[in-house]
């Protein structure tokens, strides 16, 4: 007999999903003005979870007007009063964290282990953190009495639906702005549950408005003349379109876009922990992470040893039901994304890189992609240059620290990087040379609300999180 873990699914009974949801405007749920709606499906089973409204330009206008009206009172509240609401929201999120984690795993496909242990604690932490800033803005380094911008139009992606909502809404509210937020088309549910949390917290009407919809809704929101600030997290392609839309207006904008991070392993690295860091860097959240360590740069002298250890570790990854507590890798978020990952992986093979994946049985329904490793990758390959946004790791090698820096920086992106070495001086030298917003040393994919996050080059501009994250929502 072998030690086969029995299925340990988290109960779905803790979450009550309604058959349909309206738009959350001015504190009330209402259907779309033209009555349009679309379904949201669970990527692990292709089961339709609910139907949500497709906001039209008219709905966007209504939401922006509600936010504008609420702005007068909300921005005039003393910071300590706004903090109370944020603390209340943070506590409700903690109280409802199990429900929200299950919901997020159902709608997004990510393993419950991650939504429970990573997403939800961070979501609550962001609200707690920015609640703490709300009455201390005078001391944030932006001069006395810094003023909010007004109405923030925010568009977030499908990879961390609730966490990205927290990154956007918490600093906006703490600084006195009001919000119209559009969650991603494939993962709208947790934002709608958040709307309910706002009501539960007694947040004044119109301070937070949630509009579900597709790209056209997002475009209408970004282009609305009465939006003062645009915040976007998502693909570089859409980011460029947004930049074009707001160019020439007086809107403030922050963009947090794609990445192709280098995870650099030197021959003196703590090998076992580096393997864990590589796994966490690329297979966390199925690789649906803009700062994922998707390019492994390994020093040639430890290449064989490291790859053998990495493959051994990859064989223990458990792919399957996201609600099973023992699942490490869940479902790909959508059929379109699966097709994109498949196409890029095929291109990797066609261009001569060697493909490897552990034997793992993938479920029959839903969207799945086995954790995959490409060796023999060069800077000239597409899989070394383009963001795959899936569980696909490209392995490149280097011989000297200078070569590692050169290769790591040779990308249109610059969101994050990782350095694995036991030598402190080398780590600091590398960190000063790498062109990336976040550099992790002997770890990867670690987040903290107090730590600013953002990119260089095509990874966008502006910073979220920390004291720096306040600046994007203040008139400074």
């Amino acid at each position, binding site marked *: *007999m*072998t*030690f*086969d*873990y*029995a*299925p*340990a699914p988290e109960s779905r009974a803790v979450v009550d999903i309604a058959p349909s949801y309206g738009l959350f405007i001015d504190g009330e749920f209402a259907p779309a003005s033209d009555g349009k709606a679309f379904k949201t499906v669970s990527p692990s089973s292709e089961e339709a979870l609910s139907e949500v409204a497709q906001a039209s330009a008219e709905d966007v206008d209504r939401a922006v007007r509600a936010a504008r009206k609420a702005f007068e009172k909300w921005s005039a509240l003393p910071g300590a009063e706004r903090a109370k609401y944020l603390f209340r929201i943070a506590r409700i999120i903690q109280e409802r964290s199990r429900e929200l984690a299950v919901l997020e795993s159902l709608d997004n496909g990510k393993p419950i*282990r991650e939504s429970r*242990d990573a997403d939800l604690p961070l979501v609550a932490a962001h609200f707690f953190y920015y609640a703490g800033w709300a009455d201390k803005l005078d001391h944030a380094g932006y001069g006395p009495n810094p003023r909010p911008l007004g109405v923030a139009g925010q568009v977030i992606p499908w990879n961390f639906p609730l966490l990205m909502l927290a990154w956007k809404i918490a600093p906006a509210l703490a600084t006195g702005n009001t919000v119209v937020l559009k969650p991603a088309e494939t993962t709208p549910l947790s934002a709608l549950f958040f709307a309910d949390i706002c009501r539960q917290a007694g947040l004044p009407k119109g301070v937070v408005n949630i509009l579900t919809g597709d790209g056209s809704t997002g475009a209408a929101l970004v282009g609305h003349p009465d939006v003062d600030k645009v915040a976007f997290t998502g693909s570089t392609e859409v980011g460029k379109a947004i930049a074009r839309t707001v160019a020439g207006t007086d809107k403030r904008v922050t963009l947090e876009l794609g990445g192709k991070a280098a995870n650099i392993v030197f021959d*003196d*690295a*703590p*090998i*076992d*922990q*580096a393997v*864990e*860091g590589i796994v966490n860097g690329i297979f966390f959240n199925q690789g649906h992470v803009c700062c994922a360590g998707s390019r492994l740069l390994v020093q040639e002298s430890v290449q064989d040893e490291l790859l053998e250890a990495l493959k051994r570790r990859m064989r*223990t990854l458990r792919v399957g039901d996201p609600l099973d*507590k*023992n699942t490490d890798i869940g479902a790909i978020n959508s059929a379109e994304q699966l097709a994109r990952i498949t196409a890029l992986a095929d291109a990797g093979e066609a261009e001569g890189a060697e493909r490897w994946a552990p034997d793992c049985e993938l479920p029959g329904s839903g969207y799945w992609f086995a954790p995959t490793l490409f060796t023999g990758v060069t800077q000239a390959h597409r899989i070394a240059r383009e963001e795959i946004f899936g569980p696909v790791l490209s392995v490149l090698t280097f011989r000297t620290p200078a070569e590692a820096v050169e290769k790591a920086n040779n990308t249109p992106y610059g969101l994050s990087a990782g350095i694995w070495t*036991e030598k402190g001086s080398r780590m600091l030298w590398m960190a000063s040379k790498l062109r990336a917003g976040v550099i992790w040393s*002997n*770890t990867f994919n670690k987040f903290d609300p107090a730590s600013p996050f953002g990119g260089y080059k095509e990874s966008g501009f502006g910073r979220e999180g920390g004291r720096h994250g306040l600046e994007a929502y203040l008139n400074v």
Partner: protein
Amino acid sequence: MPITVPAYGKEAAGRLASMADVTADDGALRRFLHGLPGVDAVGLEARAATLGTRSIKTTAKAYAIDLAISMIDLTTLEGADTPGKVRALCAKGSNPDPTDRTAPKVAAICVYPDMVATAKEALRSSGAPDIHVASVATAFPAGRAALPVKLADTRDAVAAGADEIDMVIDRGAFLSGRYLEVFEEIKAVKEACARPDGSAAHLKVIFETGELQTYDNVRRVSWLAMLAGADFIKTSTGKVAVNATPPVTLLMLEAVRDFHAATGVQVGVKPAGGIRTTKDALKYLVMVNETLGEPWLTADWFRFGASSLLNDLLMQRQKLSTGRYSGPDYVTVD
């Protein structure tokens, strides 16, 4: 449950012999041990914590509980030990749950050397001669005695019938960098484990990891002991403030995995001290499963050094079979 003695192939012996040059002198051994990959404490602890969140239920739990029982070195190491106490422990080890004869036997009874003969006799008379008797020798737990005393302690225990010897290393020598001295001592004790008939008692080497303090030290001492011929590496004596912890055990499992890859020699692991609950024991089994896999998931290659763990495992076992929690009065106190 029969416990087999490892028989290494010629190839493994050859590969191990080819590593002899790293123990040629103090300098070579130091260079080798300090050349092992470093350990990042934060990463190691995070990995151990993640493995600790695996959810083990229903059939997997039933399997794991029985496996854990069969891996226990049921231990009494008190100054107040008497033959009566040891006999009671042997009876418990051979028949852990009087209400359910399907409960497996433990792997071994672990006692001080002067109690070995009593334990051997008690196991024979309770019809469980296949349960091993392990004896802590070498001036356990401090290890502060002259080498001839430690070797005499070992020979005495082996002569009294001990199947396994749990030796403690000289932590003073290790911490002051006298690696070759520790190496030679382990080798000498291993030789003292030999019996006249050519067989030998199994040697478990105790590091007292709580005293070695750093994870780098734990990896180095693991390799040191394995190079010196340890059959098992064991975390601690159970007599200090910090005993077995999941990160330290994970690190030792990784060292065993790497040593096996390098030499072909399989070495066992025994966390000891402070493992009291089923939940904890299952976490350790998950670590073994995901680090070393099936070949190590037997009492031949993994043991728990514990005294109170058994009762919690039995209570959980009763819960699984009856659907109800019983209580401490439904398991024996021995």
